[in-house]
């Protein structure tokens, strides 16, 4: 196990280094922050001075080396735009994104699992077929269109829910939460649903497929033969056997949700990391963009590594495969 652990961690570190390189490479071509940082009055000399001060006159390799060296120490530098520590900026925005993702994940399970069970059990009914059809629409409708549609209906026409923002938040240490105030909970509803819709359909389809598979197995037949009520068969036996893959996928999707919250955050002016990133792109705030990409990739890599480790812990065969290189054939 220690050898396997070491190998997995080494893999993760390699991925992170590659991500850092790509992030850096892309931003070389994004544009020139100096032109966007100075206003109409600045002279050429001031432009040149700023370029030197930001280290943009140095060679690519040197800039990258400095960047990685600092990033390892958790130092992503100072934002070009507002002159604040980038890591602080991101950690201030993290709670907002995390709570949004949490609500979306909760919704996707709370709605997706029952729907999946229903469409599996009554798969020939009209309702189940309609649900299948609607879920295709749910996947293909872009979330910004959906968000604006929700805003038009629930904010402008019905005036039930706020169109933007996070409402009142309560500060607990460095964590800010909107879950403890009425306006904060209200503000979570629309963006939460918008973000979770894709996820709901994913969970629903997954549960349906797994359920159909399980329902065909012998132990369900035996359970029926024993005369157990169908509620116990469906939920006690069948569903329980389907949950493992659902939980795995949900866990892995958290990374995706954090990354894709970007669009939802822009529509609802949700003050999370995605919003920060979009602003940084507009102003070519390279340190913020680079740090965001690295933090999000870090979350991805960590989740994936944890899932791999858990699997390996559960199933010893995977460990040996990984060490002999057989795992690559998966």
């Amino acid at each position: 196990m220690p050898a396997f652990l070491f190998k997995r961690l080494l893999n993760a570190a390699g991925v992170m280094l590659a991500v850092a390189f790509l992030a850096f490479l892309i931003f070389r071509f994004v544009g020139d922050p100096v032109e966007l940082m100075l206003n109409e009055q600045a002279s050429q000399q001031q432009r040149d001075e700023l370029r030197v001060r930001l280290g943009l006159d140095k060679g690519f390799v040197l800039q990258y080396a400095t960047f990685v060296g600092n990033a390892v120490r958790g130092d992503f530098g100072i934002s070009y735009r507002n002159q604040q520590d980038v890591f602080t900026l991101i950690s201030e925005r993290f709670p907002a994104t995390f709570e949004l993702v949490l609500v979306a994940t909760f919704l996707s399970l709370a709605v997706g699992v029952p729907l999946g069970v229903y469409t599996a059990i009554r798969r020939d009914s009209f309702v189940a077929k309609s649900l299948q059809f609607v879920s295709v629409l749910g996947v293909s409708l872009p979330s910004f269109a959906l968000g604006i549609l929700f805003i038009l209906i629930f904010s402008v026409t019905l005036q039930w829910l706020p169109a933007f923002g996070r409402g009142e938040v309560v500060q607990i240490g460095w964590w800010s939460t909107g879950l403890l105030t009425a306006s904060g909970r209200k503000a979570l509803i629309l963006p939460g649903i918008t973000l979770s819709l894709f996820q709901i359909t994913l969970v629903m389809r997954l549960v349906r497929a797994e359920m159909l598979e399980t329902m065909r197995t012998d132990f369900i037949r035996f359970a029926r033969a024993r005369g157990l009520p169908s509620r116990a068969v469906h939920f006690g036996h069948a569903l329980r056997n389907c949950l493992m893959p659902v939980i795995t996928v949900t866990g892995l999707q958290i990374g995706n949700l954090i990354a894709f919250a970007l669009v939802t955050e822009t529509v609802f002016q949700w003050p999370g990391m995605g919003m920060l990133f979009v602003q940084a792109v507009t102003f070519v705030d390279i340190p913020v963009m680079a740090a965001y990409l690295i933090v999000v990739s870090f979350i991805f890599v960590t989740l994936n590594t944890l899932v791999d480790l858990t699997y390996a812990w559960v199933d010893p065969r995977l460990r040996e495969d990984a060490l002999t290189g057989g795992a690559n054939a998966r």
Partner: protein
Amino acid sequence: MKKAWLLAAVAAFALTGATEAKTLKWGAAREIASLDPYSYGETFTLAVLNHVYEGLVRYTGDLKIEPALAESWETVSPTVWRFKLRQGVKFHNGNPFTADDVIASLARVTHETSPLKGNLPAYKSSKKIDDHTVEIEVNGPYPLLLNDLTNIFIFDKEWMEANNSLLPTDSGKGVKGYATDNANGTGPFKVESRRADAKTVFVKNPGWWDKPKHNIDVIEFSPITSSSTRVAALLSGEIDYTNVAPLQDLPRLAASPDVKVMQTNELRSVFFALNLGDKLIESDVTGKNPFKDIRVREALYRAIDIDAVHKRAMRGLSRNTGALVAPAIPGYEPSQDERLPFDLNGAKKLLADAGYPNGFSFQINCQSDSLVNEEEFCQAVAAMWARAGLKPNLSMAPRSQQTPKRVKGEFDVISFGWANEPMIDAYSILVQVLHSKSGTSGVFNWGNWGDPRIDALIDKAGVELDTPKRVALMREALKIAKQEQLFIPLHQQPMAWAMRNTVASTVQASDNKPRLWLTVMK
């Protein structure tokens, strides 16, 4: 801690007990960079922070310079200005405002690592005469010091010392500052709380030295980047006011009984600039640059049906112009505002005369996120030029991608907008855009369009302290540029504010800066 709670309770009680507090909820299109006005040279950030901080002088609602923290001023010599400071002014923390504060603030803003250094280009040094008199020395005779000082805000020296903020923040050395998240000015509003990207709350400063024309107690500033969300928030009553109402939504907003729209034209003039270097970068004409021929430039000008651009691309909201500066800018001359008439056959004939009967190809570099409806008007003009027999190729991309190419001169035609802010004087466009690249001049002369006659006039205007003479020099320079058709003017771009009927009146100037200290609520 207990005391703080008690105070808060008393304050809350006092608020509910008094007549209800008037709160203006302001939905802006973007977030301000920070609470430190010196941290980022951006007009919008400065405009918002102007509610908290003030300069020695300020612009009135119709863009005239009036005294603010300075009561009066005189020139002691062509290079030395003496300012009499206003007495009895207090910072938000209660400290008195004195000459030391002015000197420390000027030192901070002109420090070599200050991002705002370019806003006070002529500054040399300052000297305290007594507690309420300051002398500022400039590098040479410089007529625009007052214009520049409208945007140099004054900090409290003691406060900066106590919080280690005497020097500007520095992204190169990783120096960050207390002033980024905290503020202490003399202005009509104080910062009460700030959550970046979410909400910044300003409350009325009861000790403001000026007699308030506003009746606002609280301003809640929220950035809402997505324009449809901003419009929805206004329609649903979640915000009272926005300073950026999207043009395509104006009819819808105006149709709502609770919302009114204020629309006018900005200071920013939009024109096309041509690459006048030795050759074009993307063209079937090689070895020479057709744009160097004035007949070709005139043909491009005459081929533009400006009324169609105005009606279609700008939705009837822009102001067509023949001049390079807006009417509110000193240096503007009504006779220069006449456009060459739209004349397609004339354009074709001019092209044929110049030796291009079948036209030629070139690239137009436009930005998708910079000027108002830039994509629309660039497409419209490209189509018009194609009708005149030319073969324009439109390159459209975000500002962050186009800017580096423009700066390096890798373009044939660019869309260009210049507002002359923050100085509000034609000298800005003259020295930065029209002047040949030399020394500190012509930073934006990206297409090599200089002219020695124009340069001479600009250089003279730059040291002329007599205003009428100076303006005459600038007009002369602009006139030559017009005769030579160095640029192809289009319009002053539109701007629109929208507010709910909770807002009784406000002042909208063409610099597009909200001045909520001149705003009255119902």
